[in-house]
């Protein structure tokens, strides 16, 4: 077998192994190890590459963003900042049909600017927003669909674990990726709110909720008190990176320290919460970085097989042009999104496509945003819509089936697709902020 054939078989083998349930880093590591060994017929070389990959990739300075932003997000969730933002947003949208849904989207967007994970947002807002919408007689599918759809904002609006992972694979700066995620994140949030407004007008049956919110209106000092902490955090983190005062690592550390102070001042944060947040941070960091470590063995393997270059030549020989390549890429993302989680899609697909995108003369920062949004659509579609599973698991309401969550999320997946097309057509939405 030629190296190219071995490389191709490895990619297929990795996807199959992950699908049957092999731990993702193990699938990447084992298959890459074996194929390097076979390609070069050299066991020692494979062992050496394994050693270098494990020893080197974790030493990357920018990876300190992973534990720092994870810790900040966990502290902020445990301190109840998500609930506060939700209360304020609810107040803002109280007069509109579907207003609680819009408030959920808005609160998610703001909360996403201090956490890096969709899963965290999905579980926080399932607990707060779904019961509220059910109480106001919203359609159950709409209620869970809004939470699922808007949880995706957590992965696009910085700080985001997916943007960090991409910046490693594509060798881009974490800070630039973060800044490029702001425009698309806001666009997606606005598109969701617009879609909810349209649904309220066109298909009121799907939205439900004839009643208006009956909670007492918040006073101005209350609003200020509930929004100030989170606004301060966003200012420090994103403002610091944008102004160039802080590197992403420093912004993460500063944000963590401020989040701890806020949590302690509010007195809702016990020593137990603190320790749990630390343990959770460690677990998440170790799993993400081990995944990245084995993915670096995988991209070395692809390089040895010359697979990315061959794939580029193959695609060029069809003369698809920019539009054609993008159509193929988005379809691939949607297909893989039904099988794999977002991180694996990024780690498996991006190394294959980098030379093609570079040949097109497109920005790799822009390509990262496209990739993350495209792969995230899979969070909302069966059979592996992770956000939907989390919502079902958090809800613990036998009246709402997994099918309801998926059906409710469907309109939001479609909105995402439309936004994705806009992001592809107008790269300045992502890149404008960098100029």
């Amino acid at each position, binding site marked *: 077998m030629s190296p190219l054939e071995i490389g191709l078989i490895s990619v297929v083998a990795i996807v199959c192994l992950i699908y049957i349930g*092999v731990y*993702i880093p193990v699938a990447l590591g084992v298959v890459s190890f074996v194929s390097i060994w076979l390609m070069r017929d050299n066991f020692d070389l494979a*062992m050496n590459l394994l050693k270098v990959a494990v020893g080197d990739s*974790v030493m990357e*300075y920018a990876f300190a963003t992973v534990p720092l932003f994870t810790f900040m997000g966990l502290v902020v969730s445990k301190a109840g900042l998500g609930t506060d933002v939700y209360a304020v947003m609810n107040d803002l949208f109280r007069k509109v049909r579907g207003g609680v849904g819009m408030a959920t989207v808005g609160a998610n967007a703001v909360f996403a600017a201090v956490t890096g994970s969709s899963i965290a947002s999905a579980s926080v807002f399932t607990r707060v927003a779904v019961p509220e919408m059910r109480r106001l007689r919203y359609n159950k599918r709409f209620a869970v669909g809004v939470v699922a759809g808007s949880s995706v904002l957590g992965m696009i609006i910085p700080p985001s674990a997916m943007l960090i992972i991409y910046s490693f694979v594509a060798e881009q700066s974490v800070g630039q990726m973060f800044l490029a995620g702001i425009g698309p994140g806001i666009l997606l949030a606005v598109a969701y709110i617009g879609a909810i407004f349209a649904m309220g007008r066109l298909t009121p049956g799907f939205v439900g909720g004839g009643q208006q919110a009956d909670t007492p209106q918040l006073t101005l000092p209350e609003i200020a008190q509930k929004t100030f902490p989170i606004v301060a955090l966003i200012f420090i983190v994103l403002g610091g990176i944008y102004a160039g005062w802080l590197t992403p690592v420093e912004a993460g550390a500063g944000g963590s320290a401020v989040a701890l102070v806020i949590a302690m001042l509010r007195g809702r944060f016990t020593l137990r919460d603190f320790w749990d947040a630390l343990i959770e941070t460690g677990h998440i960091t*170790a799993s993400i970085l*081990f995944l990245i470590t084995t993915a670096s063995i995988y991209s070395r393997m692809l390089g040895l097989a010359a697979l990315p270059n061959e794939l580029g030549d193959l695609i060029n020989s069809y003369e698809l042009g920019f539009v054609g390549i993008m159509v193929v890429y988005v379809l691939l993302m949607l297909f893989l999104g039904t099988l794999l989680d977002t991180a694996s899609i990024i780690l498996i697909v991006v190394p294959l496509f980098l030379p093609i995108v570079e040949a097109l003369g497109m920005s790799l920062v822009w390509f990262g945003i496209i990739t993350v949004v495209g792969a995230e659509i899979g969070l909302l579609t069966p*059979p*592996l819509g992770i956000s939907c599973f989390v919502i079902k698991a958090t809800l613990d309401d036998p009246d709402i089936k997994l099918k309801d969550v998926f059906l409710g999320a469907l309109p939001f997946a479609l909105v995402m697709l439309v936004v994705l097309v806009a992001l592809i057509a107008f790269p300045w939405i992502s890149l404008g902020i960098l100029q």
Partner: protein
Amino acid sequence: MTVLFAIRRLLYRVATVANAAGTLVVLVLVAVVNFDVVARGAFNAPFRGAVEVVQFSMVLIVFLQLPDVVRVGRLTRSDGLLTVLGASYPAFRRLLQGGIDALSAVLMMLIAVTTWPEVLDAWETRDYFGTPGVFTAPWWPVKLAIFFSASMCSALFALHVLLGPHVPDDTSAAGET
């Protein structure tokens, strides 16, 4: 069998202690980076070893906590198919899970084997990284942490194969036999 359970109990304890140690490193990381930012911004006196300390703590966080991630079964995976299969064919599911854990044990063992010579080498040569005269840190704790982590993970996976999948706490593990 009882010997294996005793070994597992011991390894679980080691993983938990390593996890707690790694957890404290997260705090050190937050503190060091903040110290550097404040010292540089307010007193124009940056902490010169900040980058090296950050790199060093990342290795410790990741590799001290990885065994505990394996212990609680939180290594990244998509287990949709396994869950569906498990409902109708529990025996097949167990077999598949055993195979997956065995494969994982082999990969971790390979990492441990390939890292061990580096541990010895780094210990003997007292090699360091960083900029001489400014801030340096020795390589050997880094290599040792990787070796420790990979060996622990390999052993834990092997025990999962032999004793069945992960059980959250030790008392219920004893009742399993």
